[in-house]
């Protein structure tokens, strides 16, 4: 495993895609902070730096999907994956080493994004105002769902032998998660009541009535669970929902990592390679 990791990280140093995506992560952080600062100057008021630390969740899924599909897809298309097997590397170790590499990269990008946010955001907007315990919990949530993303895209890239198909499936997956999360998030944000106007004595009188679109308790539980399972759903939850049960999120991520890695290992171990 050490040999595989050593070779993988050596290759990474010369990987243009990795450096390109790293620049994109830095660029995203800088643009986000610049926009916030511009808004503060234009409209006045105070801006809290807290939320900006976790905005990386909006980007990280795309970055990992692109990286994993190309970096691991090249292993198939260049024939270097079979080279590892021919020379006696265990398939399980090959899979796990790739998962570790993609996970380390995703954690690196989160840390890099937050480092830039801290270095520039705190001097611009002031110190973190959030309770430090909650801040650390959210930080753990971001790291854990980033690794969950890594496990999903490593699974796709290791199970599918075609690089182009891998890239398409990874991107479709991340888009599907994004749209699915947006849709569920909107449903959960539906207010419990709505205002209806009725005519009383020739005048429209507003009246608060139960919202028929408001999901039932059972529906809410199902939608929340789906959002909790999806890494992109977690990313939406932490930036958009104040009273979410954040503590459970890392456990959902661990579940996703175990299931995708377990199934991926079983399939890859049995897979006929060309």
């Amino acid at each position: 495993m050490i040999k595989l990791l050593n070779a993988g990280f050596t290759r990474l140093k010369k990987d243009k895609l990795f450096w390109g995506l790293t620049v994109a992560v830095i660029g995203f952080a800088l643009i986000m902070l610049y926009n916030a600062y511009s808004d503060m100057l234009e409209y006045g008021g105070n801006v809290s730096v807290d939320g900006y630390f976790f905005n990386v969740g909006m980007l990280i899924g795309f970055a990992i999907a692109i990286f994993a599909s190309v970096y691991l897809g090249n292993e198939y298309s260049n024939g270097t994956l079979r080279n590892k097997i021919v020379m006696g590397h265990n398939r399980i170790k090959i899979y796990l080493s790739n998962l570790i590499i993609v996970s380390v990269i995703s954690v690196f990008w989160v840390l890099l994004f937050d480092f830039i946010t801290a270095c520039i955001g705190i001097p611009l907007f002031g110190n973190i105002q959030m309770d430090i315990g909650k801040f650390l919990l959210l930080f753990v949530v971001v790291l854990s769902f980033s690794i969950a993303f890594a496990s999903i895209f490593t699974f796709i890239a290791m199970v599918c032998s075609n690089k182009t198909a891998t890239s398409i499936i990874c991107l479709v997956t991340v888009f599907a998660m994004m749209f699915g999360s947006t849709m569920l998030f909107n449903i959960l944000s539906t207010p419990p009541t709505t205002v209806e106007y009725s005519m009383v004595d020739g005048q429209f009188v507003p009246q608060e009535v139960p919202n028929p679109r408001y999901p039932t308790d059972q529906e809410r539980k199902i939608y929340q669970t789906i959002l909790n399972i999806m890494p992109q759903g977690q990313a939406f939850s932490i930036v958009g929902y104040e009273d979410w049960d954040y503590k459970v999120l890392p456990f959902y991520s661990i579940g996703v990592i175990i299931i995708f890695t377990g199934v991926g290992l079983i399939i890859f171990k049995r897979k006929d390679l060309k």
Partner: protein
Amino acid sequence: MEYILETNNLEKKYKDFKAISNLNIHIKKGAIYGLIGKNGAGKTTLIRLICGLQKPTNGTYSICGVKNTDKKILKVRERMGAIIETPSIYANMSARDNLLEQFKLVGLPSNDGIDELLELVALENTRNKKAKNFSLGMKQRLGIAIALSNNPDLLILDEPINGLDPEGIIEIRELILKLNKKKKITILISSHYLDELSKIATDYGFVDNGQIVKEISSEELNKKMEHKIELKVKDVKEFSKYFEKNNINYEVFDNNTINVYGKINLSKLINDLSKNDLVADEVHEKEETLENYYMNLIGGGKND
């Protein structure tokens, strides 16, 4: 006999299609084993199984005496190298970086051997040129260098000269001979280029319909491919007596055909026969080739 690779009734099925069945191959240590067969005969499937890329449906194989079902097979594979169809190289890296990557995979403590390998495959002057800009021959040679990084005892080359120009073919041929002679590496080569194979192989295995139909050493094959004179005669017995008496190497092929082997002057032979009142109805001088032998053995299937 010490075999570096042997299979025992190896079988690989894809759904209902048997790509190989009851395949038995025996490769001696130190041999250059030419695997010959038409497209779809099962050559690449056999190589994929031996390399651990696919699992056999039935049967077993052993590398250096270790069965594929034994966990030690992974350890044995550490002394194996292969190029299957295309060389396993990172296209965006230089030859040196590709070897550096391979050295890390092998777990070599130092990178000192990289220059030697680059020199061995004549890629020492490629500097920072990326592998994607290499010619096909250079890519194949880089693939061989990568396969040699772990100092293998067994090197498997699947169609190593496909698509190469004549110069590239000569370079690969010389490299294979050098590796076999100097580094004592056993080499299994599958190829459609029978003439090329006949220049380097010490043993042959002919594959057809997923089975080895014949294994033969180059010595035995050379005997069979000797220069021969085919005589169509009425009475094979009289001719046989004459050849026996004069110590001439011959073979009665059928009731009307006798083959005479060796470097014999055709005019002299006809003269000598007529002096003994032996007259052949037809005389044909034949030079057998590996290709003829293959066509006769496989039954005239197209060798593409």
